[in-house]
């Protein structure tokens, strides 16, 4: 009797899920969503996915972000590498971000946050000049707002370099650190500017500050190690490079400089190990790049040569 009841229950649960998915697919989300939310777990992967997709779509249609996140979370837990689920997650979060931006613009149209958001959008679109103007407007309006001078510096550095690039960026980064002395990123960029100009003591000082402010900042440890190495302090360079390698073992640059530091310190075995790690990390980085390019652009094919 019991197995029969269980089978009947499973059948009715399955039928209910099917009905809810059907309702959702026909735009009747208000009726579908409560059923989908409380649906008993289904074993069949395809049905699981259909429930998830229907739930996410309905939640987004009814503007219920927490429900959308709930269904998405279930799907990502069940199939964390499923391309369809990753694609859906990319879209849902992008849509939710757009909605938050629209809400910001509607509820606080004159706020500094709206200008900052606009500046970021212009920056992403490559319209650096207008982005810079927007950032400067925010800085003029709220001179003590953390993060703005850092973004201005970043923008200056991403434009074609001229004589004033480094001094202008340095001025903005120093202004940022006056407002927010805990900005490890600003210290790091100042370190990089100094390193590129071979000002080793300044570079070391900024990188050291960045690593103290953020103990997980792998690139800052690499920068510190490289600068110490370049200034002839080989032994001191080893510890930060080892930390950087632990924090981010996939960065070939760190292994490269660690190998040099070990060679100079006469630690041949360690140097060989780092060289091997450098080669492996470089190959992995190249492979990832190739995979992405191949995925996006497709494989190389033989094509007829056009006449000259």
């Amino acid at each position, binding site marked *: 009797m019991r197995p029969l009841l269980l089978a009947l229950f499973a059948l009715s649960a399955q039928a209910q899920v099917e009905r809810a998915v059907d309702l959702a*697919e*026909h*735009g*009747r*989300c208000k009726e579908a969503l409560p059923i989908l939310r409380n649906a008993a777990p289904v074993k069949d992967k395809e049905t699981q996915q259909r429930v998830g997709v229907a739930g996410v779509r309905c939640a987004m249609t009814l503007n219920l*972000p*927490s429900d959308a*996140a709930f269904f998405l*979370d279930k799907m990502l837990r069940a199939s964390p*590498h499923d*391309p*369809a689920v*990753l*694609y859906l*997650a*990319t*879209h*849902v*979060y*992008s849509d*939710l*971000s*757009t909605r*938050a*931006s629209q*809400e*910001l613009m509607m*509820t*606080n149209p004159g*706020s*500094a*946050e*709206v200008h*900052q*958001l606009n500046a970021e959008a212009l920056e992403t679109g490559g319209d650096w000049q207008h982005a810079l103007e927007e950032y400067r407007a925010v800085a003029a309006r709220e001179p003590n707002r953390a993060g703005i001078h850092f973004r201005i510096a970043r923008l200056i550095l991403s434009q074609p370099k001229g004589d004033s690039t480094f001094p202008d960026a340095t001025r903005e980064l120093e202004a940022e650190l006056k407002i927010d002395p*805990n900005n*490890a990123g600003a210290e790091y960029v100042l370190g990089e500017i100094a390193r590129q100009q071979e000002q080793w003591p300044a570079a070391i000082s900024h990188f050291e500050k960045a690593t103290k*402010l*953020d*103990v*997980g*900042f792998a690139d800052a440890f690499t920068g510190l190690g490289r600068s110490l190495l370049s200034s002839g302090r080989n032994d001191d360079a080893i510890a930060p490079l080892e930390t950087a390698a632990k924090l981010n073992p996939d960065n070939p640059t760190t292994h490269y400089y660690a190998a040099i530091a070990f060679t100079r310190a006469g630690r041949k075995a360690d140097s060989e190990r780092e060289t091997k790690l450098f080669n492996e990390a470089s190959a992995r980085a190249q492979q*990832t790049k190739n*995979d*992405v390019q*191949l*995925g*996006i652009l*497709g494989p190389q094919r033989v094509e007829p040569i056009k006449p000259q």
Partner: protein
Amino acid sequence: MMCSWESLDRSAWSLSSHNRSMRTLLFTLLPVLLSAQTETIQGTIHLAETNHCDQALPQLRRMLGHVADPHLKKQAEMDGLTCGMSLNSVDDALAFLMALNYDFKTDPEVLYLSAGALSDLSARYGQTLLSTAPNSPDAHVLSAEGLEAQGKWDEAAAEYRRAIQLNPNRPGLHFRLGRMQLNRPATATSAAEGERELQQELRVDPNNAEAEFILGDRAREAHQWQDAAQHFNRAVQIDANFGDAFLGLGMTYLQSGRPQDATLPLERAARIEPNNPAVHAQLAQAYGQIGRTADAQRETQAQQQLERQNPPH
């Protein structure tokens, strides 16, 4: 043992006296307790804001929902979100995001932070897709959408076609290619390919209401009334809340000289999209043509009011 009224009174008094002293003690200690809590919260916030998220996050997680002071609450929740994102703990990030959007729904700082965090999450999942399954149809579609957004139509079309080649029967792929070809600046072949792809989509997925809608709209623009009505009718049968499809159907009837038939779908569109001035304008026209003057005037007023509130650009 007998219990006299007197002893009961005494014990009641002593109980209330005990309560009183407890209360006094509590009132004395309350500021101390509150200030200790405030100090703990401030300490955790300081940890989070000095890049010690690994230590701060577990404490912020425990505090979630237990901080009374609104200023500290907002700061703690914002730091929780930032730390969750920086430690790649999506569960934490989402929990703090929900809390922030519940507690500080229209706060500009919160909305700005939310928009950034959500956009970051989207980018992370996109990158994971491109790096873990670069040859999947989803990766091609994602890359096509990126190219489409940049106006690189031909490259985007090539990407959509690659996705279709990999999985020709997957719902949505023909639709995306078709919609893009119809939206892009026209070439000699784009419109024909666009319509062909939408029709192909309907063979793969007969429940794609948007494909029916776009085909209906194109037929309406070409004055092919019967085709247009068929497509719009199918769209509203698939999606009973598709306001624009009801509007399209109503407009088709109106333009083809059937104002009586137009009223029903237009009334339905007005119920679904009461803030769309175009719906009220069409409805006013339909009522006007069948002699329902009062209804027509009411709809014109509704249209004008909506346009005053949101002037057309």
